[in-house]
């Protein structure tokens, strides 16, 4: 087991992502952040807080993708997680999805489907803390905290102090 990001590195990565979002979108006027629960939601809130310090308030919410998963039939029914779309909506907005780990890309595909049911954003961008490779669909992130090449047999664990005891990202051998 190896720690690839510690608390300090996580904080700096999120701050950098916040700056990149402002830069790429030329300001925050049209931006909406939607975190994918559970940990993506916490990261979304943290990035929104950083954006608030840098450039001003930005609407932030969560979008649960459970009902849009393509692997529902493989396991017993999963509990639904909270979905809170900000009142300003997503129609015509630049939506930035936030998640902790980008792996096969299926979670993001489900999120795109879910967004499509809600409305039509002007653009959808993706911010992730860790990109570990092994895509199974043509999905890519716009903002990446750290690229961590892994073997498919390894597991990446993200801990966030909001629900875990600490902030860290670890790689472990085996499932």
């Amino acid at each position, binding site marked *: 087991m190896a720690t690839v990001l510690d608390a300090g590195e996580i904080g700096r990565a999120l701050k950098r992502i916040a700056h990149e979002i402002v830069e790429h979108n030329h300001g925050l006027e049209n931006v909406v952040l939607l975190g994918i629960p559970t940990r993506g939601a916490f990261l979304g809130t943290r990035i929104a807080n950083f954006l608030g310090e840098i450039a001003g308030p930005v609407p932030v919410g969560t979008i*649960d993708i459970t*009902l*849009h998963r393509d692997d*529902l*039939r*493989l*396991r*017993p*029914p*999963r*509990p*639904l*997680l*909270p*979905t*809170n*779309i900000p009142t300003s*909506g997503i129609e015509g907005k630049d939506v930035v999805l936030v998640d902790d780990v980008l792996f096969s890309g299926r979670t993001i595909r489900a999120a795109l*489907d*879910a967004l499509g*049911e*809600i*409305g039509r954003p002007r653009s959808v961008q993706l911010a992730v803390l860790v990109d570990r490779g092994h895509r199974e669909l043509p999905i890519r992130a716009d903002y990446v905290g750290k690229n961590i090449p892994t073997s498919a047999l390894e597991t990446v664990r993200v801990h966030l102090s909001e629900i875990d005891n600490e902030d860290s990202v670890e790689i472990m051998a085996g499932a």
Partner: protein
Amino acid sequence: MDRHLLSINDLSASEAIQILNTASELSKISDGPMKKLPTLRGRTVVNLFFEDSTRTRISFESAAKRLSADVINFSAKGSSVSKGESLKDTAQTLQAMGADAVVIRHGASGAAQRLADSGWISASVINAGDGTHEHPTQALLDAYTIRSRFPDLRSNFNGLKVAIVGDILHSRVARSNVLLLTKLGAKVTIVAPPTLIPVGITDWDVDVSYDFDSAIKNVDVVMMLRVQSERMADSFFPSEREYSRGYGLDIARLNSLKDSTIVMHPGPMNRGLEISAESADSHKSVVLAQVSNGVLVRMAVLYQLLGGAAFSGEVSA
């Protein structure tokens, strides 16, 4: 709850709360931004209604369609069902059609269980009302409605006081509600004339009162049950007038309730018999919310039964 939802006894308290939580999430996304969800795409839900009930059937149909399931309706009138085809033959036809879930409403108590136990079908069975036995999704939507009006109740109903009033003897809604409310920790009082209270009520975890006025003094929920005037022919009560004088929620009783008390009714209502028009339309009444909550709760139930790994149901020859 395994493959079927036949009775509230199929659910533990936490499973029931899980359904309510799922319905809450669905209300945020499905009532608001996302009208249709792909979750049950490719699944077939059959509404097998041997008793007429447009409201409940439409509620289940909406729930299934909002989850993108295919819906087939078998209703009593004008189908082979009304021509005397047996429950068994009807069920085997559905099996041949590939039903994943069968929502059954039937006039015989235990019909849903017979369908589930028989081995005639491998689908999940949801009891939408069997005779005078149970109506589990009604109790779940009633609990959901109560919780939405009393936001302090999250994972249990401890301390909640409920009065269930009316024809308990013949009410499947009453049986399911008593089971669910007591399971969640509420205190339930049954109010009815003695003729409409079952002999075995001593075994239920409830208080019994023949006095409507004193029983509703401090309750949080008054749940009125429909009374059929046909019961007069069997001498359950002498006249409609006497019944509503003793057990009708009239304006005087409505005004005696606490401000926070809510009035519920599973419908359809006999305005003027068990509930006055003023009571039905007052701001305390949550009857309309009960109807709309029905779709959400039934979506949650369908998701719980069909949204995950399909069970390898075995059908006996």
